[in-house]
């Protein structure tokens, strides 16, 4: 068996650990929303959601163990396009 096949047959234990982390992060989002954090609320909620997505992408969707370059750049590329959309929209909304 080739080494990359070993990686693809990821251990069940890893999946359960990732799932537990995701549940804990959900609890953190929930409790953070109960605090009065003012303008930090959105930032905290989005960074926790971003962390959770990163875990799902890397472990459940196996981006971490992909060898081809295209799989490594594909998500950052789309996020960059999305960021351009956000900047363009908000430069309109905010300065109208």
């Amino acid at each position, binding site marked *: *068996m*080739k080494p990359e*096949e070993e990686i*693809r*047959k*990821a251990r*069940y234990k890893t*999946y*359960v650990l*990732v*799932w537990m982390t*995701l*549940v804990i992060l*959900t609890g953190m*989002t*929930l409790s953070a*929303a*109960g*605090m*009065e*954090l003012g303008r930090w*609320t959105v930032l905290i*909620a*989005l960074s*926790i*959601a971003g962390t*959770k*997505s990163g875990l*799902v*992408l890397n*472990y*459940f*969707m196996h981006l971490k163990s992909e060898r*081809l370059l*295209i*799989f490594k750049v*594909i*998500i950052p590329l*789309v996020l960059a*396009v*999305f960021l351009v*959309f*956000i900047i363009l*929209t*908000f430069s309109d*909304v*905010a300065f109208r």
Partner: protein
Amino acid sequence: MDETTGFVLEEEKDTTGAKLGMWLFLLSEILLFGGLFILYSAYRYKNPVDFHHASRELEVILGTLNTLILLTSSLTMAVSISAIQKGQRKLSIYLLMATMAFGLLFLVNKGIEWGAKIDHGIYPNSPILLSRPKGEVLFFGLYYVITGLHGLHVLVGVCVLSVMLILLLKEKINPAYFVPLENSGLYWHLVDIIWIFLYPLFYLIT
């Protein structure tokens, strides 16, 4: 597997192509929901107080429960794929069925949630909703469109997974060929990721 035979190499290439195609589709999905997220942010930026009041009316418990259901369904999906790769066919079948059950449970919860709101007269263009401040009308409009579109994705996911279940039972998906199951898994996880963002943005506005 023997690396010297051209047949195996060709098969591997094909697998990569299928996966790449799936990823390209998923990226278009990200931009589809991304556009709606930008719409949400722009309206929330303009109507912060109304969004806060409207968000308080959503059932946080149901939203949290649905988050946990989808996260768990992602776990069963990932292990199901891993199981067929390892040749544990029965485990793979049971976990795939569990994933579908979680998906349906999610939709039932969503139905209860929508039903309660509609009973209170809050649905797009309802007289009660239109008498509310503009920002609250926008919030509930976005709520129905985005969670509706997401729910539709869950429903499609369950349909795709039921096809995968048939293929698994017929052994068309087996330890030597499992790309369709893997790709369906990718789709299922993406639907989970979208919900990960919807949850704090709709249920947890302080």
